[in-house]
């Protein structure tokens, strides 16, 4: 198995990276670190795709001329599909990251923390405050 892993070392590295990213995404309490984890995971996927598209000894998929004619032999170029998929993936990841960061910024403005659990605590405290306020006001009215 180890030999095969060494043979597929790009894919293995990609998988380990995506594991790191996933762990960060699940485990970190800090939202910024979660988002960094997400980006690591996405990058790992691109590495995986790029490795899938590579064929040993072939050129990048941009036609070149030889003797005044386009070389269109399919055995000369690497697989262009993963490149297209990576391009799409990058744009998706940029969009998602920007959106997540915007939400994080708003969360920070509302709660003063980047930790989503602390935000939950703050929310419960605020609700308790409001309830206490209401009951106090009712008591005041009665008095």
């Amino acid at each position: 198995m180890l030999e095969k892993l060494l043979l597929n070392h790009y894919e293995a590295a990609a998988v380990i990276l995506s594991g790191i990213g996933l762990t960060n995404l699940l485990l970190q309490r800090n939202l910024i670190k979660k988002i960094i984890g997400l980006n690591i995971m996405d990058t790992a996927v691109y590495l995986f795709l790029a490795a899938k598209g590579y064929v040993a000894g072939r050129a990048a998929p941009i036609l070149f001329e030889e003797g005044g004619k386009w070389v269109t032999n399919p055995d000369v170029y690497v697989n262009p599909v993963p490149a297209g998929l990576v391009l799409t993936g990058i744009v998706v990841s940029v969009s998602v990251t920007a959106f997540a960061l915007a939400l994080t910024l708003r969360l920070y403005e509302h709660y003063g923390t980047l930790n989503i659990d602390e935000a939950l605590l703050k929310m419960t405290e605020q609700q308790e405050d409001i309830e206490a306020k209401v009951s106090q006001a009712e008591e005041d009215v009665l008095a």
Partner: protein
Amino acid sequence: MNEELRNIWTQFFNWVMGNGPRPENEVIPPEPPPALPFTQKPEDKYSRFHEATLKERYNQWLELHGLHIFSSLYSGLSVLTCIVIVCLLLATVAELPPFGHERNPANNEVIRRYVQYGWHETGAQNIVAGLILDYRAFDTFGESSVLFTAACSVLMILSATRSNKPDKKSPLMRHHVFRKDDAILQGIASLSIPVILMMGCVVVINGHLSPGGGFSGGAILSTALILAANAYGFERVHEFFSERTFIVSSSTALMIYALSKGYSFFTGANHLHSIIPKGTVGDILSAGLILPLDICVGLIVAGTLYGFYALFSEGEM
């Protein structure tokens, strides 16, 4: 010396671990009472005024509800899950077709046609450009729409700050110091912005001939806008690139994209003749719709990336 080094190291360590100065005693400026929901005024007699920081309170709360065990259990389980996933994936990877081998399943008849006839069918010298903007154009249209969705969402979420408090900037943005008279920055910016713009245009326009295309070119164009905003101020950029300009330009570009691609999909699916010429491979004006689509995508990306920057640093465009 050693002490200093240790201090710096401690600071760095705290920063990495997120134990740095807490936001509550750090970010909020003392003088103007900020109208933020999370700062309760002490004179309000019904509200609690907290001595402890949020982190301490959080830990107390965990203790109180006996959630510490649960919390550490959750962490342990997550690590375990991730290790299991990584091991599974490693085992999977070991079984996968070997790296770089030409007989892999992915190198099949689909690829052969892209490479062999792609130049003839799409007119693009860059096979990837032909692939993403002609063969699989629907994916790429979806991808531009993802960017559009994200731009709209970010605009909505971040510009709400401004609609609530028209004059005041949010405390997050007050650290953004801007000097109007930075001669070095302005001088270098005035030299490099034209170069960057030209570079961006070249990358966009040569998308079907060489590496690059709408997305990379648009990203380069947006750096010129960002540099201009930093050197001359957002107000100057705002004069020719406001929020309205951004919305109009992105929507129009995406609309052109949608309509032209819609035409091409419609004629293709119904086996109608399409009037779009393919041109000669290798010329600038070739490859049918790819060049105009690249320009549209470039406009969208440039506007959106600058918009993200402006919204995050200023809260407005």
